[in-house]
């Protein structure tokens, strides 16, 4: 996988969650290149091409899927760092988390999160949400800086939802 072609940066520390999300994407026929960062520090290293990713040439992902409870650097601080850097300040960030605590929602909205989604317990609902997010943020939505589009869902028309 070439890291300069990453379409989705997915920041999630829990391997079971990663596996479930990947299953949901597979079942939604999403065939996008994804980089999975296992903590907040790795996510920022990847985004800003530093540390182990120093050789990467900066290309903005189409969106960042961000968990909040992360080791080392928490999701809210990751979001803050993204918004504070001119290269990434406009990248769509979608928080995908277990909690629906008001203070998290308010805090991330203050940091101009683009969407806040609670992971439902029910897998079928979760899969629908993953599919909707992919469809919306890769195909429907226009965002600044991503001029090469239309590579979104591999066969979104045939999934029948």
């Amino acid at each position, binding site marked *: 996988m070439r890291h300069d072609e990453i379409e989705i940066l997915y920041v999630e520390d*829990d391997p*079971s*969650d990663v596996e*479930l999300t990947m*299953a949901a994407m597979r079942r939604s026929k999403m065939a996008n290149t994804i980089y999975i960062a296992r903590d907040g520090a790795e996510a920022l290293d990847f985004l800003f091409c530093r540390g182990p990713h120093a050789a990467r040439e900066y290309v903005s992902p189409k969106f960042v899927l961000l968990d*909040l*409870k992360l080791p080392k650097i928490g999701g809210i601080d990751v979001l803050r760092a993204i918004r504070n850097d001119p290269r990434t300040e406009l990248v769509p960030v979608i928080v995908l*988390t*277990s*909690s*629906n*605590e008001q203070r998290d929602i308010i805090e991330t909205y203050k940091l101009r999160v683009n969407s806040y989604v609670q*992971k*439902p*317990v*029910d*897998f*079928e609902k*979760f899969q629908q949400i993953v599919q909707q997010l992919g469809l919306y943020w890769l195909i429907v939505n226009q965002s600044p800086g991503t001029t090469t589009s239309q590579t979104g869902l591999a066969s979104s028309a045939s999934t029948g939802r």
Partner: protein
Amino acid sequence: MANRNSELIEANRELESFSYSVSHDLRAPLRHLGGFSKLLHDEYNDLLDDTAQHYVQIIQNDAKNMGELVDGLLNMGRIGRQQLGCKPVDLNLLLEGVLRDLESESAQRHIEWQIGKLPVVECDSSLMKQVFTNLLANSVKYTRNCNHAVIEVGQFTSDGRVVIFVRDNGAGFEQQYAHKLFGMFQRLHRADEFEGTGVGLATVHRIIQKHGGRIWAEGEVDKGATFFFDLTTSEELHEKARPIGMGASQ
């Protein structure tokens, strides 16, 4: 007094961080249980014999149940901490919204609704909506084996206080266990008769209590159930609201 107050604040903070952890950390393993068992069911069903499929189904159902329990508990915690936002609320208008929300469950059923004229009361409308949603959803659920379900909402005045009631002609309950109805996780019906978590009425109880009101129930097996609650006047409520505020009201 100041000491007591700081203890309350501390207890409240602990409760808050507890429920924060619950919402983050307890839900994650539940999602995984539900998710992977769903994947097993959908993608590996051919490899499983009937017993194995049955077990997978049990895991899925239980994960779903526990998800509802956790959400119910969190909601209870939130209600406890929340400040009441009381204003005059037209209960008939509120009820219209609740009935619309319940339509997905009640539309396929033949239910005779008897909605009386209800008063305007001073209350927190979003919490009061939860009260009616829980009570009416219960009535819809427990009348589902009735040929002719009747659900009635009305009011009367007793000792100068307004009493609201929700009555149905459903499965009812044994009056001797009525006091258990409002306990957390307490159920008077087996899960294979009527599904449920035992959180709904406990939540209703908490909300009414928080409004300074009382709630009680009357029932008879296979004849139906009636839930009553009264609400204090706005002056009484202001009196009571002062020392609570922090939420740890029990």
